[in-house]
C-alpha cells in the first residue's frame, strides 16, 4: 500500500485562520486590529510557503470502496468520498502563495491609509482570501458553490465599503448579477448530482467514465450552460465585463488587487473543473474560446476609451482575464500551461499597476486624466514603477507578461488558430497604448495652472516596498520562467491525463 499524507495539516489552517481573524477583527473593530491582522497575514503567508502537498478530508470520514464494501483513508485508492475533499498541490501552492502575499500588503495598506473603524473591511479582506483559497483547493461541486457564493457576497461588501454612490451602485449591480449566477451554479450542481449521484468531482467524472452518458447528455449540456454563467460572472467575461470592471474601479486599489487575484483564481479553478467534467462534450471548448476572444477584444477596446486611470486598469484586468480563459479553453497542454501561467503573471503585474494607482490617492486621490497632472515631478519613483508595470502588462521581454503570452501564442499556432495568435499580439500592443494614454496624461503632462501645491507627500514605506517586491518578482519570472512553470506543468499533465 502506498502510504500518503491523507490528512495534510496545513489545509484547515489556511481556511480557519483567516476566518477566525475576520471574526476577531470584526468584533474588536478598533483596538488591536493592526497587530492581529498583520501577524495573522504573515502566518498565512508562512503556512502557504512551507506546506507540503497532499489531501485533507474534512470531518474525517473515509471513502467507501464500492466493490469490496470496505472503507479507506487512502486517497490513492478510488472510493466514494463520504466527506469533503481538499487538495493542496503545486497549483494551489503557487496561487495561494501569491494571493497571501497580496493579502499581506493589502492588510497593511488598509490599516495605514484608511480612516478608523476598519474592522469590518479588514474582516472582509480575510474572508475574501479564505473564499479564494477554498475555490482553488476544493474538489467538490457543492462546496465550490458555497465558496463562490460567499466570495460574491464579500466582493459586494468590499465594493460597497467606501460608502460613495458609485460604489453602492457597482455593488448593487454586481450583487444582482451574482444572485443569478449563484442560482445558476446551484442548478448546475443539482443536475450533475441528479445525473451521477456524486458531488465530489473525481467521483462524478469516474461515474461518467464508467457508465457513459448516452441519451443523458442533454442534462450535462444544460449543467454546462449554467456553469458557464458562473464562470462568466467569476472572471467578468464578455457580457458581464461592465459590472465586474465597475467593481474593480469602485473599490480601493489595494482591495482591487486582492479582488483580481481572487477572480483569476476562480477562473482557473472553475475552468479546470469545466474542462474535467464537460471536456468530452463537443462544442464545450469552442464556447470557452469564443467567450475569451470576445472578452479580450471588448475589454481592451473599452480600456482605450476610458479617461480614468482606475477604470483603464479595471478594463485591462478584464481583458487579460480573456488570456487566461483562452488558454484553458484551448484544452491542450501548451494552452493550459499558458493560461495558468498567464493567471500568475497577470496577478503580479496588475498588482504593480494597482499599487501605483493606490499611490495616486496619496497625491489627492485624482486618478482621472482630466484632473491629475505632473505626478512624475512629485514622485519619480511611482512614475517609473507605473511605466515598468505597463511594460510588463504589454508583454515586453524582460518582464513576466512576455513569457506566458509567447506560450499562449505558440499554443494557438499549434492548434491551427493563427488568428487568435494575432489577436493576442494586438491586445498586448493595445494594452500598452491604453496604459500610455493614462500615464502620459497623469504623470508627464505639465500642469496647466501654476497654482498647484508643491507640498511634499510621504508615501508609506510599505507601498514602496510592495511595488519593488512585485517588480522584482515580475523580472525574475520574466528571466527564469521555470520557477513558476515547474509548479504548473505537473498539474497540467495530471489534469489532461484524467
Amino acid at each position, binding site marked *: 500500500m502506498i502510504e500518503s499524507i491523507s490528512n495534510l495539516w496545513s489545509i484547515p489552517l489556511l481556511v480557519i485562520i483567516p476566518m477566525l481573524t475576520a471574526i476577531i477583527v470584526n468584533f474588536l473593530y478598533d483596538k488591536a486590529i493592526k497587530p492581529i491582522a498583520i501577524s495573522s497575514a504573515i502566518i498565512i503567508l508562512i503556512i502557504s510557503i512551507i506546506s507540503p502537498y497532499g489531501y485533507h478530508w474534512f470531518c474525517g470520514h473515509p471513502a467507501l470502496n464500492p466493490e469490496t464494501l470496505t472503507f479507506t483513508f487512502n486517497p490513492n485508492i478510488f472510493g466514494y468520498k463520504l466527506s469533503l475533499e481538499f487538495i493542496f498541490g503545486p497549483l494551489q501552492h503557487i496561487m495561494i502563495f501569491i494571493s497571501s502575499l497580496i493579502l499581506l500588503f493589502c492588510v497593511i495598506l488598509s490599516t495605514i491609509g484608511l480612516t478608523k473603524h476598519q474592522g469590518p473591511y479588514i474582516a472582509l479582506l480575510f474572508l475574501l482570501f479564505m473564499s479564494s483559497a477554498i475555490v482553488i483547493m476544493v474538489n467538490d461541486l457543492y462546496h465550490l458553490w458555497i465558496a463562490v457564493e460567499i466570495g460574491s457576497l464579500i466582493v459586494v461588501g468590499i465594493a460597497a465599503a467606501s460608502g460613495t454612490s458609485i460604489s453602492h451602485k457597482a455593488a448593487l449591480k454586481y450583487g444582482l448579477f451574482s444572485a443569478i449566477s449563484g442560482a445558476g451554479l446551484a442548478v448546475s450542481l443539482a443536475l450533475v448530482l*441528479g445525473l451521477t449521484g456524486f458531488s465530489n468531482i473525481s467521483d462524478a467524472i469516474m461515474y461518467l467514465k464508467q457508465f457513459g452518458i448516452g441519451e443523458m447528455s442533454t442534462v450535462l449540456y444544460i449543467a454546462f450552460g449554467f456553469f458557464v454563467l458562473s464562470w462568466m460572472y467569476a472572471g467578468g467575461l464578455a457580457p458581464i465585463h461592465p459590472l465586474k470592471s465597475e467593481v474593480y474601479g469602485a473599490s480601493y486599489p489595494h482591495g482591487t488587487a486582492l479582488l483580481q487575484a481572487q477572480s483569476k483564481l476562480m477562473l482557473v479553478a472553475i475552468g479546470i473543473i469545466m474542462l474535467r467534467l464537460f471536456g468530452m462534450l463537443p462544442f464545450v471548448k469552442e464556447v470557452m474560446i469564443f467567450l475569451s476572444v470576445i472578452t479580450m477584444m471588448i475589454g481592451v477596446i473599452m480600456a482605450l476609451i476610458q479617461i480614468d486611470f482606475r477604470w483603464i486598469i479595471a478594463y485591462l484586468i478584464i481583458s487579460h482575464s480573456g488570456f487566461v480563459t483562452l488558454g484553458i479553453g484551448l484544452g491542450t497542454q501548451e494552452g493550459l500551461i499558458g493560461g495558468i501561467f498567464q493567471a500568475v503573471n497577470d496577478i503580479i503585474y496588475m498588482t504593480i499597476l494597482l499599487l501605483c494607482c493606490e499611490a495616486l490617492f496619496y497625491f489627492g486621490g485624482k486618478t482621472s486624466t482630466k484632473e491629475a497632472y505632473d505626478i512624475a515631478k512629485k514622485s519619480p519613483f511611482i512614475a517609473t514603477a507605473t511605466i515598468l508595470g505597463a511594460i510588463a502588462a504589454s508583454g515586453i521581454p524582460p518582464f513576466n507578461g512576455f513569457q506566458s503570452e509567447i506560450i499562449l501564442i505558440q499554443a494557438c499556432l499549434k492548434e491551427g488558430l493563427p488568428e487568435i495568435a494575432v489577436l493576442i499580439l494586438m491586445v498586448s500592443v493595445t494594452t500598452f497604448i491604453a496604459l500610455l494614454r493614462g500615464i502620459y496624461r497623469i504623470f508627464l503632462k505639465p500642469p496647466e495652472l501654476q497654482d498647484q501645491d508643491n507640498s511634499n507627500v510621504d508615501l508609506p514605506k510599505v507601498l514602496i516596498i510592495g511595488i519593488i517586491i512585485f517588480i522584482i518578482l515580475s523580472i525574475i519570472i520574466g528571466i527564469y520562467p521555470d520557477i513558476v512553470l515547474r509548479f504548473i506543468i505537473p498539474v497540467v499533465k495530471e489534469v489532461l491525463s484524467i
Partner: protein
Amino acid sequence: MTEVTIQLLGFIAAAILIVVGMGGMLFLDNLIKKIIAFTLLSDGVNLLLVALAYREGGIVPILLPGMSIYDFTSRAILIFPAGIVLTNIVIGVSTTAILVALVIMLYRRYGTLKASVILKGERR
C-alpha cells in the same frame, strides 16, 4: 399518481419558477421587484432540489424507533439534494438582505427605485 409524474410536475414547476425569476429580473424595472424576482429564482432552485430528492413512498430521513435500517435506506429521501436546500435558503437570505440594504441606501440618495434611473449607464 406514479413516481414519474409527481417528480416531473415538480421539475416543470421548478423550471418555470427559475425562468420566471430570470425574466422578472430582466424585464421588471423596479429594484424591489427585481429582488422579489430573485427570491422566485431561488425558490425555483429549492423546488428543483426537493424534486430531485423525491422517492416513491419516501419518508423523512429521521430514524424512528422500530424501523429497520434496510427499510430506511431504501425508503428515506435522497439526503444530499435535501441538505443542499438548507444551504440555498441561507444563501438566499444573505443575498436578499445585502441587496435590500443597498437598495435602501440608494433610495435615500436618489429618491427613486427605478433601475433605469439609478443604475443607468454613465461615462466616467
